């Protein structure tokens, strides 16, 4: 290694690879209660990262450490090459959109947005133009002179966003900012927020308990469970390649199959499929939409010779119940050995005289996951 050392190369990769934010083994204890443990995470400039977790998973605490409202018990936080966690909140180039907006009730919308710039003693002409730009960006120019109590929740949300963004922070923290909005407005704001983030190019760390919201908006999702990072990956990867049983179940629905792997074949009750997983006990996640209703006209590819890898695995199962979801239906079926599977299908399945269905899935869709032990 030493002989091939190229300083120019190393240097360039370092500057390119240097993340905006870097959390190093951050932990937080409240007395004996461990809220966060060993959180290490790097966030790139301009990234939209979602911290996803159930209530009590420590996600808000993590955000408050980044904002400076809580002191980490252990570990360090660095931003753009500077230690962040030792600075008071008012010296950090980090702004927050609070869960309940936290607009100053005694100030107008305009004064709220101007607050940070006034504190920073910017010239008044600059304040004026930046405030009006920020309000225009969130479509709130018409309400500049209104008091926060006179505008709706969704509008307060936009003002809170403008108030944070107008300061051009390096990092914007959003603490469940959409949780107080109704479903339709929420979906609309998700789209707007994502578009706004692309436009301004500021790094967003977004905290939510809503996995759907996380999927829609994020570049990457950091899934937090009982104070520990369960998995950090893009929405696509975290969905299709969940690392643990918990991830697989928390993000979307899944079928967890307890299987026994021997000679490259996984067997779970009546089901068996080829796998690259190592021999021994294995837990597999199979998404409901990966199980299809088989085309009964096509010849079944049974008689699967163990040597050739079949494209699909076929199975027969009894229909237990079905729930209509609009675009698709959720079916619960029971295999011959009593194992219950859930599947999602957009076609009405053909059921034979015994109430049985012909189903199939691709072995590649059965993802080996680490079992998740129960934690308090």
């Amino acid at each position, binding site marked *: 290694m030493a002989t091939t050392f190229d300083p120019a190369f190393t240097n360039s990769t370092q500057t390119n690879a240097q993340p905006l934010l870097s959390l190093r083994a951050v932990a937080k204890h409240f007395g004996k209660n461990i809220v966060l443990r060993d959180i290490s995470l790097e966030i790139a400039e301009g990234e939209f990262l979602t911290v996803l977790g159930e209530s009590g998973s420590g996600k808000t605490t993590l955000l408050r450490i980044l*904002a400076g409202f809580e002191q980490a018990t252990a570990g360090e936080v660095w931003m753009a090459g500077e230690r962040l966690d030792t600075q008071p*909140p*008012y010296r950090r180039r980090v702004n927050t959109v609070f869960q309940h907006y936290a607009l100053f009730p005694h100030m107008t919308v305009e004064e709220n947005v101007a607050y940070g710039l006034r*504190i920073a003693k910017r010239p008044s002409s600059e304040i004026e133009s930046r405030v009006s730009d920020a309000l225009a960006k969130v479509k709130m120019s018409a309400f500049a002179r209104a008091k926060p109590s006179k505008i709706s929740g969704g509008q307060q949300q936009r003002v809170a966003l403008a108030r944070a963004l107008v300061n051009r922070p390096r990092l914007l923290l959003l603490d469940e900012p959409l949780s107080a909005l109704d479903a339709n407005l929420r979906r609309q704001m998700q789209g707007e927020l994502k578009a706004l983030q692309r436009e301004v190019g500021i790094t967003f760390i977004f905290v939510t308990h809503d996995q759907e919201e996380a999927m829609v908006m994020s570049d990457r999702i950091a899934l937090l469970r009982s104070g520990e990072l369960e998995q950090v990956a893009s929405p696509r990867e975290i969905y299709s390649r969940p690392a643990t049983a918990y991830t697989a179940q928390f993000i979307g629905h899944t079928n967890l199959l307890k299987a026994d792997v021997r000679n490259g074949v996984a067997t779970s009750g009546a089901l068996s499929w080829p796998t690259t997983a190592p021999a021994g006990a294995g837990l597999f996640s199979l998404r409901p939409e990966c199980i299809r209703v088989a085309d009964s006209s096509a010849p079944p590819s049974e008689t699967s010779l163990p040597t050739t890898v079949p494209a699909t695995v076929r199975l027969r199962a009894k229909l237990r119940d079905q729930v209509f979801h609009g675009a698709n239906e959720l079916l619960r079926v029971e295999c011959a050995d009593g194992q219950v599977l859930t599947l999602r299908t957009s076609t009405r399945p053909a059921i034979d005289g015994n109430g049985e269905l012909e189903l199939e899935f691709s072995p590649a869709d059965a993802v080996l996951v680490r079992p998740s032990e129960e934690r308090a």
Partner: protein
Amino acid sequence: MFSRAYRVAITVPPLAWVTVFLLVPYLLMFCYSFWSVSESQAIVHSWNFSNYRELATKTVYWETLLRSMWIAARVTLFSLLLGYPLAYFLSFRAARRKDLYYQLVITPLWVSYLVRAYAWKTILGTDGVLNTLLQYAHLTRHPLDFLLYSPFAVVLTLTHIYTPFTLLPIYASLEHIPRNLIEASNDLGASPAQTFWRVIFPLSIPGVLAGATFAFVLSLGDFLAPLLLGGPSGIMISNIVVSLFGAAYNWPLGAAISFCMLLIVVGLLFFSERVEKKWSFS
């Protein structure tokens, strides 16, 4: 929703109470203020403005009134200066000891007013605790005589007595400030001092006004502290009213003064309530 009998049963007693013990006495007082007293000390029921004319022309009355207002203003200022920081400490810094400190603020209210006023008498007197101490420490050779029987003594005692009344509404208004506003202010770059002046103080103005109104109104009408500790130079308007209703036996003039004070107080309450409303957001 409720039966007619029920509604009558719950509205009549308080209405009757207010009528008998508040409206009728005020009305009587108002009538008295236009009557006069004859040579033979009998009330003459003839309507005229002579009492008000006397108030306007005799300097002793409105000078005493002005002095009382000046004393009340100082009491208000000092109780705010003492009460606000203490309320702030209770609300933001006391943390787990909050309830204990709150009780410590409340407890003096359980002690009789007279006991507290007399306590100051023993502290401030010529041979009192304070003078003895000062002489013992050689800070002064002769006892300080301005300590007792002076406006100073009245202001000090009233400040002591009415500070809890000022503190409590301030404390309540500070408790009502959502803590995330303070975090938002810090988050937007404001230091703790900037946050105090731009967010916390403006949002506590209703409490400050309510507290100031309590201190001013209560001390303006006080007559015990000036009676016990004021001496001739610390006389307040209520002392004059007391003597007019008592020894001087001039109820009509006393009623006129009382009515003027009532107007001042009502005007003040009206004004402070309007300003409080303008500054409350919830």
